[in-house]
Structures are given as structure tokens and as C-alpha cells.
């Protein structure tokens, strides 16, 4: 494949759908890859979608980028995203808002919107690199009609990932097919001594997909408040798995309703400390410090550099960890997280894979997103935050369309049982 052709295509797609923050004209390699802009690429500008890093050029490659380059990938560009991953629709971006290639009046989903849109539209790309904290792979995968794998926390090194919430952040893959997703994950997974949370579980070759007779669980809580037409599509996939010889049963994950508050408290508490380092002193956006105390200067740069949603999340996260609030919010949320993990562990004692809708709605129109309050915005993550809190692998696979827009089914498996999610996803794809 001529990489320059792929670069040319990326530029065209970018003009049409606003998918990239930076395009790498001098990309070299055997196959094209787009990388979410919160993953460091040596010598190639990396902004995490934020103005505060508008001129930041990393001095090292993230481990996943190193691994991809070693496997022959050409990094074509860095894709659009919500600033630092703060959003569900890729509209909280300091640069461009990516448009859904299926219907450009609609969102790609977020926060890995650019990567999903690119995979959906490109005829060259087999997969792209995304990253999820609370659903940022599953959501855009479902909205753009591509496959998205969010691996077990610790399976893929976070070294070189610009942190949103370190205990939740996972790098994963958006792909054309389940098989492409598995191949992509095989390339980027494996232990890394530079990330202390990286797991020692030996890497597997997920591309060697195995058909398996799995027990499927259907969590009833994941169908509450879901668009009935979407629920119907998801049920059809579950039935097709059944006709393929898999058994399904209804299960309950009773703490699901606490997932959203627990997720936002933990994620924003961590995020508010992660964003502290951006203060115009060592790199990134800077301004004239003369006549100002360091506090005034830091505030000025941060006021200019952070978008509205980043500011909101820093303020919320800071409150949640302050004395007087810390016990009832931050520490409580950690306890709830443990209960949510227990829910999944109990369910995986009975079944191999859980199947549920990826998103409660189809990709919304930008005009609809504008009307959402921040709380409604946060609530749209209702189906994705629990698996992210638990750090379990989850795969979103397209399962038909509603009103012409793609719908996704998510397949959840126990920690480090990615192969089971892939096997079920393969069944859905061929069903």
C-alpha cells in the first residue's frame, strides 16, 4: 500500500468530516494508523484536544505507538477528541468537532470521535487507536458503526497516554471488523515496566479467534431507559447467538444505578489533579508573567487554555476531594466501585459474556446535543461507565441500524478474558 495515498485520503476525509487535529504528511510505514490525540507521538504535536497543549511536541513515543511502529504502522495523524477526553460527543474540543461519516449532521460520539469516524470512512485503515475512561471507545464505535475493543485495565500500557483519570484510562482499538480489532489489540497489548499498573498476565494472540460455546448473560438493568428500537436490535443479536448454539439467561447487576455518580466522582477527582500540571511554566500555552504572582500567572494561563467543560470538571473534581467532602464523595465512590466490581464477578461466576446495548440512543444531531444540560450529557454514559469502573474488557459490535444510524451491542467479559468477548462479537458479526 502506498502510504501517501492513505495520507491523501486522510486529508480529504478531514476536509469533509473534521477528523484530525494534526496530519502527519511525512508518515512512513506499511499500513496506516490514526492515533487519538491524547497519546504521545515523538516529534508529532500532541494536544489531547486542548488549547493549553496547542504547541506541545512530545519527546517520546507512547508504548503503544512504539509497538505499532515496530509492527510497520505509519502514524497518519492525531484524531479529534473531547478536550482531555471530557465528553461523550466530541463537541468539547478546542479544535474541530468531528462529523459522523454516516450522517454529518450527527456526532461521531466521544471522546475518541475522530478515530471512530476515520475507521468508518477510510478505505485504507483497518483500525485506529482510541482510548476510554468511561465509554470513549464503545460510544463512538456504536455511533459510527465500527467495532471497538476496550481491553482489561492493565492489558495495554498507558505509558505516554495523557491522563484523564489514571485508574480508569485504557487504550484500545476501533476497527472495521472484530478480527481487525483483535489483531490491533494483539499488537498493542503486553507488559510494560514503565507503567506500574501494567499487568504481568502474558499477552495473547487475540487474532486467532476461536469459536466458542459461551453462556451469555443479559443484564436487565442495561435495558432500562434504552430506546426500544435499539433494545430490539440488541435482542435480535442475542437471539442470533442463541441460534448459533449459545445459551443465554437474564442476570442482574444491582449496583448499576450507582455507577454514574461513582464514576464521575472518581474520574473528576483524578482529572482535577492531573490537570494541575498545566500552568504555563514548563511547556504548552504560556503568557507574559511580568507583574504577576505565580498564582495569578497560573490562573491566567489556565483560564485561557482550558475549555468550559475542562474547567467544570476541575472544579467538580476538586470539591469531591476536599476536606469535608472527601469522605462522603471520593472515599464513598471508591467503596461503590468495589461493589460494582463484585456485581460483575458474581455474574461471571454464572456466565461467560454479558450482552447489552452499547448506547441508549443513536448518534444525536449536533442541534440536539446543544440542548443537553451537563447532567443529561453525563447521563448518556449510563451503559458504559460500569464496565469501565470495573476495568473489564468490553467489545462494541455493530448490530444493525435504527433510523439509518448504526446501533451497537456491547459484549462484556471478565478481566483478561478478551478472547471470550471477541468470540461472542464474532458470533454477532456473522449472525
Amino acid at each position, binding site marked *: 500500500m502506498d502510504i501517501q495515498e492513505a495520507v491523501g485520503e486522510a486529508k480529504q476525509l478531514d476536509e469533509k468530516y473534521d477528523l484530525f487535529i494534526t496530519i502527519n504528511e511525512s508518515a512512513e510505514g506499511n499500513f496506516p494508523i490514526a492515533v487519538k490525540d491524547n497519546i504521545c507521538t515523538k516529534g508529532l504535536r500532541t494536544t489531547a484536544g486542548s488549547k493549553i497543549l496547542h504547541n506541545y511536541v512530545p519527546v517520546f513515543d507512547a508504548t503503544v505507538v512504539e509497538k505499532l511502529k515496530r509492527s510497520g504502522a505509519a502514524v497518519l495523524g492525531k484524531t479529534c477528541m473531547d478536550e482531555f477526553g471530557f465528553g461523550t460527543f466530541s463537541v468539547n474540543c478546542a479544535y474541530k468537532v468531528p462529523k459522523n461519516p454516516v450522517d454529518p449532521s450527527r456526532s461521531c460520539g466521544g471522546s475518541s470521535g475522530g478515530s471512530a469516524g476515520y475507521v468508518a470512512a477510510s478505505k485504507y485503515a483497518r483500525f485506529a487507536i482510541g482510548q476510554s475512561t468511561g465509554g470513549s471507545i464503545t460510544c463512538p464505535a456504536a455511533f459510527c458503526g465500527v467495532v471497538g475493543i476496550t481491553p482489561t485495565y492493565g492489558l495495554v500500557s498507558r505509558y505516554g497516554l495523557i491522563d484523564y483519570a489514571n485508574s480508569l484510562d485504557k487504550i484500545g482499538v476501533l476497527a472495521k471488523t472484530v478480527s481487525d480489532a483483535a489483531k490491533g489489540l494483539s499488537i498493542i497489548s503486553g507488559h510494560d515496566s*514503565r507503567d*506500574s499498573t501494567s499487568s504481568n498476565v502474558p499477552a495473547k494472540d487475540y487474532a486467532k479467534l476461536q469459536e466458542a460455546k459461551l453462556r451469555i448473560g443479559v443484564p436487565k438493568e442495561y435495558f432500562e431507559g434504552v430506546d426500544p428500537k435499539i433494545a430490539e436490535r440488541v435482542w435480535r443479536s442475542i437471539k442470533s447467538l442463541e441460534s448459533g448454539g449459545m445459551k443465554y439467561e437474564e442476570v442482574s447487576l444491582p449496583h448499576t444505578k450507582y455507577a454514574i455518580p461513582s464514576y464521575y466522582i472518581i474520574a473528576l477527582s483524578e482529572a482535577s489533579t492531573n490537570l494541575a*500540571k498545566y500552568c504555563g511554566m*514548563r511547556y504548552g500555552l504560556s503568557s507574559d508573567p511580568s507583574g504577576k504572582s505565580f498564582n495569578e500567572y497560573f490562573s491566567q494561563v489556565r483560564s485561557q487554555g482550558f475549555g468550559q467543560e475542562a474547567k467544570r470538571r476541575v472544579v467538580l473534581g476538586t470539591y469531591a476531594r476536599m*476536606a469535608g467532602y472527601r469522605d462522603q464523595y471520593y472515599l464513598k465512590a471508591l467503596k461503590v466501585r468495589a461493589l460494582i466490581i463484585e456485581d460483575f464477578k458474581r455474574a461471571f461466576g454464572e456466565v461467560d459474556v454479558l450482552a447489552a446495548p452499547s448506547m441508549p440512543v443513536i448518534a444525536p444531531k449536533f442541534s440536539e446535543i446543544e440542548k443537553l444540560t451537563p447532567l443529561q450529557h453525563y447521563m448518556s454514559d449510563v451503559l458504559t461507565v460500569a464496565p469501565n469502573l470495573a476495568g473489564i474488557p468490553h467489545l462494541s459490535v455493530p448490530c444493525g441500524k435504527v433510523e439509518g444510524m448504526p446501533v451497537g451491542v456491547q459484549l462484556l467479559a471478565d478481566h483478561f478474558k478478551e478472547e471470550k468477548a471477541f468470540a461472542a462479537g464474532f458470533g454477532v458479526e456473522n449472525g
Partner: protein
Amino acid sequence: MVEPKIGLEVHVQLNTSTKLFCPCPLAGLAAAEPNSLTCPTCLGHPGSKPVLNRMAVEKGIRIALALGCALQESMYFSRKTYFYPDMSKNFQITQYEIPLGKDGGLEITDAQGRKKTIRITRIHIEEDPAKLVHAGGHLESATHVLADYNRSGVPLCEIVTAPDFQTPKETRVFLQKLRSILDYIGVFDVGAAIKADANVSIDGGSRVEIKNVTGFVEVEKALADEIMRQKWLADDGKPVERETRAWVAEKRTTLPLRKKESEEDYGYIFEPDLTRINLAVALVNKAAKGMPELPHQKFERYRREYGINSELAASIVTDLDVALLFEQLVRSQPKLAASWINILKKTLYFNGLELRQTKLSVDTFSKLLELVGKGRVTSRGGELMLRELVLDASRFDELAAKYSKSEIDIGKLAEEVLKDNKKAVADYKTGSRKALQFLVGELVKKSGGRVDARSASKELEKELG
């Protein structure tokens, strides 16, 4: 008056070979070009991650064990978030609700010679921030500030005591003893300074914190000054305010830093980039294995095995180098070792030196004791040799020749002494023992210490017939 209540927060730099969370080296840090010993992690670059230095944990465990602290089952780190230009991430990775060790103690002897235990509340490990240089003078007069991140990420161990000290002097005794223990267990370069924050209250009044005092002499001075200030306020009927003050060493006084209506709020969260570290039996055992005999254990052993008096034993064990020298000498020179170590300590003290600053080797010191033991050099001569050896150990052969008994003609010296002291000779002849003692002293003096009193007396009696 109620005795002052004093507590300390001691910061010790651990002598690991690399920083706490990155591979940047610590060797040559003091002399390195600013910002030359840095990497993305200690500069807080986006995407960088901390990786815990296991050696620092092991050294921390040794401190906890040496101070009798209870180790926690697991180790966690936390983020302490505040904005300051010396902070590369604007949060410090430290330990908060679950410190490495808790509830230990260290015994000291107070001014009345009574033993008392200073409780250790907690010890934890944390990273040092960068160094700020106020260009153009002091904090107030500086035109700008330069930040050197070479120090950023240097491993520190914080040791917090209960407010168990009653006098500033006790803090010095404590810090000296602590320093000696840290040296013994190999976690700290004695050349590095011990830094401390001290808190003090008198008569049950408000607690004042004194920040960032370097060295135990300064800690004692700062506390004495602060107690004086609080007493003056009390004498004037003014309240002592709860506040944080800075010790300005050159002005020998504390200055207000900030009023403290309430605790600062650092919004601690668990450090999510570092997983829970299981302080498994294996790790603790490994650290315990590296634990040498501690000062108080050596003290007991010296008393038991060598029958040394407690004052001398205590003096020897304070300094690890001296203790190790003693242990080597005592094998070959069991009779002389203790008394000569005592002479060495006095000689060092007189010269304001520490043993490690001299080039005096075990070998040289054994040779000296051999000369004395075999009577080739007098005790006095040996002492004089030692005075010069601590300054320049390479002169051993030259000094040995100079002070050797065989190099002098004792008979000739005795004749001269008798000639010069006719009156004493006459007194001796009338039976005065005192006169002989005087003449012996003169002869020893004249020989420059090369002749001891016994030989001198023998020679003189021979000459006097």
C-alpha cells in the same frame, strides 16, 4: 510554667542510586548543571508515569524497623495537590492515610540523665520538589526565580514524632541519635543534611510550626529562639497565635510565614498510577536481612564482651565509622583498643573532624597501637603521633621514626636534665621523692614524648646512683 511541648517532622534524603519514581541518577546531584538530571517523569511531562524505586521502599522499611514502627500490610501513595513553581506536577506523590510505618519510638537521655522515649507517630516516603533559586537575593528582593528540577523526585523519608520533647536540647540529642541509626542502617549519607520542621507550644498555648530548618544545631537554636518569643508574648499578656514561621538562620530568628486558621486542604487522593504495594513477608525479610547491628545493640555487646564502661561504649557507638574501627582493632589489640579509641575520639573532637574526613585507616591505626604495645613508642609519643596522623595519615613512617625510643640517646638526655636542674638533684639527694618525679617529668618533656615515665625514672636513678 508547664514545660514546652515540642514535636519534630524530620526529612531525610534516602541514599538510593536513582530518584524515587524515575531512573534519573542521584550521584553528583550537588554539583550538576541545573536541570541536567531530569526526564519527562520528574519534569511532569504529559504522558509520563511514575515507577516506584524498590530500593527506596526497602530503605524505608529498614528505618521503620530500626525505629520500632509497626509496618502496614500494604503500601499506598497519595497525591498532595497544591500549586507552587517548584512542583513539576503541582502535586506531590507522598503517603497520607496509610503511611509505611506507625507507632514506633526512640529512647534518649534527658538533661537529668533519665531515659525517655520519644514516640514516632509515623514514617512515610515522598518525593522532593525542585529547588528554587531567588535570583538577585532573598525572597523579598528577588527579581525573578529560577527553578532547578534536578532535586525533583529525590526520595525522602519523613519521620514524625509526637510532641514529646521538653527542651530544644532534647531535639538535638534525638537528631544525633537518629542520624547515627540512619548511618548504621545504610539509608542516609551522613554528609547530607537532616532537615526538620519543628512545632512548639508553651503553657498549653497555640502550636507554632517552624518550617525547613537544616541541621540539628539549627533546630536547637530555632526552637530556643521561638520559645523565648512565646515567653515574651506571654509576659506581655499577648496570645501566641497559631501560625507557621520560617527560621532565618543568618538573622537567628523566626519570621512569620502564614497564619493558620485551619489546616491547609491538599485534597488528597490515592496515587492512581501506583498500585497497592504488598509489603509481603519476603520484602520485609529482605529489608530486615540488610539490617546491621544497631547502636544500642552494639552498646550492650561492647559492655558484655569487652567490659568497657558505659560512657566509653556510648561514645564509640555514636559514630558507625568509629565503632567499626574499634571492632577491627579489638581483635589484634584487645588491651589497647578501647582506650586508644577514646584518645582518637578526643583528638578528632579537638580538631573538629569526623573519622571519615581523615585518611586514617584501620591498618595505620593498628600499626600505631603495635608500636605502643611493643614499647617502641611511648603512650605519650603515640598520642602526639595520632594528633598529626588525623591531619595527614601518610606521614606515619616519618612520625614513627621521629617518636621511636631507639632513635634517642636516653643517657645523654638524662645527663642534660640533671645538669639543668641542680636544685632538684640536691633535693633528691636529701631524700625527696617529689624531686625525682619532677626530674622524670622534665626528661619526658625533653624527649618529646619518646621516653616514657618508667624508663625515665630508671635512667635517672641509674645516673644519680
